[in-house]
């Protein structure tokens, strides 16, 4: 198993390198640069700034410089936020993004599985319809709209929860952003769960168990849930990575610091280092998550062998 994990990691390196390279050159070929603002900089000033960030070197030299630094764990400076380097920004933003994503993940996975199971058990009866509808709303409404509406409704009209911002340690401030993130995730999980549960409930061994006279509760807990979890588990990795990259609109609207927001702001401002740094971080996380999911999957499903 260790060898399998090791091989997986090893094979990801070239792809990651290609992705970083592609990003690097696409960014540099794009029009506009980090110092193009509303007002023209005097040529001498511009030349000095460019020299300071090595932007005056040939592109290839810059590339190897970047890779060299990267190998030493240095993601370089931010060219737009003065006095911060990329690692510092990530160390500020990532905990926020991660906290939100993990909260949303745990809550949504629990609710989603439960809703999916209930819907499957009551297939085509009213609990099924109600749950499916409640869940679909979260999936189908774009999250930036959901965020704006919830903010208006629960933050401004009802004043139940803060309309945005962050006070460290306050669960209260997390409620709206986590809801917006969690809802669609719960929706997807419950759809998967419902589908696979219905399938499992129709299989011969569940029928056999029932015919043995086993109570419905026991049938579910002993025979149905574990196999029904398989597709859900295989979605958890992509699901969490979706939450991590999908937090952007939430961060923007609720005014939270987070790497999603850093990424977009940086891409728009041509803050090359931050764009690359956050992309690398995301890739790293997603690769790790997928590996973990595969290992969990193998544990759940004895049929899978490590290739």
């Amino acid at each position, binding site marked *: 198993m260790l060898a399998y994990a090791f091989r997986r990691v090893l094979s990801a390196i070239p792809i990651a390198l290609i992705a970083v390279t592609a990003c690097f050159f696409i960014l540099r070929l794009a029009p506009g640069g980090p110092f193009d603002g509303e007002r023209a900089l005097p040529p001498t000033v511009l030349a000095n700034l460019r020299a300071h960030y090595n932007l005056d070197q040939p592109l290839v030299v810059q590339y190897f410089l970047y890779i060299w630094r990267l190998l030493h764990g240095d993601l370089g400076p931010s060219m737009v936020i003065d006095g911060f380097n990329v690692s510092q920004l990530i160390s500020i933003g990532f905990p926020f993004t991660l906290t939100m994503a993990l909260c949303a993940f745990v809550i949504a996975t629990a609710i989603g599985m439960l809703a999916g199971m209930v819907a499957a058990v009551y297939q085509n009866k009213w609990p099924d319809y109600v749950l499916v509808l409640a869940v679909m709303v979260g999936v189908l409404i774009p999250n930036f709209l959901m965020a704006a509406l919830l903010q208006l409704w629960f933050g401004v009209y009802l004043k139940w929860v803060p309309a*945005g911002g962050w006070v460290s340690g306050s669960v209260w401030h997390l409620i709206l952003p986590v809801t917006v993130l969690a809802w669609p995730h719960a929706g997807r999980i419950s759809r998967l769960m419902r589908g696979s549960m219905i399938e499992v409930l129709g299989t011969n061994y569940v029928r056999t168990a029932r015919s043995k006279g086993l109570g419905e509760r026991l049938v579910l807990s002993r025979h149905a849930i574990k196999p029904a979890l398989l597709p859900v588990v295989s979605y958890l990795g992509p699901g969490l990575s979706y939450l991590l990259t999908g937090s952007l609109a939430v961060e923007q609207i609720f005014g939270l610091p987070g790497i999603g927001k850093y990424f977009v702001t940086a891409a728009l401002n041509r803050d090359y280092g931050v764009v690359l740094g956050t992309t690398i971080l995301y890739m790293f996380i997603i690769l790790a998550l997928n590996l973990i999911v595969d290992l969990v999957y193998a544990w759940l499903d004895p049929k899978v062998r490590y290739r």
Partner: protein
Amino acid sequence: MTFTTAFKAIATAGAMALMMSTAASAVTLQLHNGGDPGTLDPHKASGDWENRVIGDYIEGLLTENAKAEAIPGQAESWDISEDGTVYTFHLRDGIQWSDGEPVTAGDFVFAFQRLFNPATAADYAYLQFPIKNSEKINSGEITDFNELGVKAIDDKTLEITLEAPTPFFLDALTHYTAYPVPQHLVEKFGDQWTNVSNIVGNGPYLIKEWLPGSYVRSEKNPDYYDAANVKIDEVFYHVLEDQAAALNRYRAGEFDILTDFPADQYQWLQDNMPGQAHVVPFLGVYYYVMNQEEGQVLSDVRIREALSTTVLREVIGPDILGTGELPAYGWVPPGTNNYVAEADAYMPEWASTPYEERVEHAKELMTEAGYGPDKPLTLQLRYNTNDNHQRIAVAIAAMWEPIGVKVELFNAETAVHYDALRAGDFQVGRAGWLLDYSDPSNTLDLLKTGTNQAGTMNWGNNYGRFSNEEFDGLLSQASTELDLDARAKLLAQAEKIAMDDFAAIPIYWYVSKDVVSPKISGFEENAKNIFRTRWLSKSE
């Protein structure tokens, strides 16, 4: 535990956390600051959202009062020589950086040298170019910084020599480019001196925390000379670019002041929160540049005239934007200091002719220029991505349609947009200019012919590459004119020449848009839209 009890527990915990966070600090100002500050270093700052933070923690020789007029700051008094070129400043007693080091004239000399040092790469160094030799140092022509016209006579006395008498110089000294920096720290930490763990200040507030993407937090400086009159103990400068979300948070009571609001909500604000929205003329002009380089369609003045005269400016502010910005026909915003009386302000004749006639005349001009219904002119109109810019572009495109101009809209992010403007890679482009100091030269310089630097033309912010010898001549004549009235007349003449030649299309005069909670007092509307926290107070 049932669901309801769990919910109650969470609610109680949250309420307690909320109460504790308000009880812990005395008076906290929650200021919506808009953009994310790119820096806390006064020499590198460039936005008003940076100014709001920096101006609270560092104070220059002069500072702003509640109405943003220049008043004594770190300098208690000053003398001006009779020819108006030598200023001698006397610093206050007992002023110090927050680490206990005294603020000396040397810090100012150091700061000005650092500002003009090309290696600092200060965006706005040019604002202090009236100072002797500063421009040459900044362009690398002079490398001996001691030749700069800023000298410390002793620790308490600073002498600044100008190139020529400059009526707005004291005003310019309130700008953050003229702020002192702590020499002892900058020499020790270099650019890292603004790191929150190193930073010191001499202003009414001190930076305590900086969370990029969320907020900067400052606390009152107990050692500030006027600390006794500073009422607010703590300030949060919140980052939030989504204006609708910012207004929501204001309505939820989380922000005390908004520094911008969505124009669409203006009516709503007036109806539901009367008196809280402040829309005030702001010294600045919103305009379209036209690429007038040789070979470009718009180098033809007839087409420029046709385009400019068919922009119906009166609908833009009230209808398209909804905040009632006033139409602009000239180049110098009304209310600018050192200028001709408002009654004598530039107003073209065509502005008073009915719009239909203007359209007819424009059609004739287009025909003369070789375009017509059978041969429409296709123009690309570029703007940077923003709802308001988009609306204006859409509206103006519709206004140009009847004269046979087909407009292709093209939006891009700020960096790309200005990169294209600077490279001359556009036909019509959106731009805007907020005055750095209240003087007509600040906008008129935008239309000055570029300078030849080592074989390449540097057009600076004159994106349209408008060039008119007479205009340039008047500007340079004005720059040496000592009599303010005569100078104003020369500048007004220049403005008329540029506008009659349709150098650009001014569209409206900017307004500042703030929303201020009734809890806040001490907020005074002003044309600079600067309201320093030290003048504000907040009642619970």
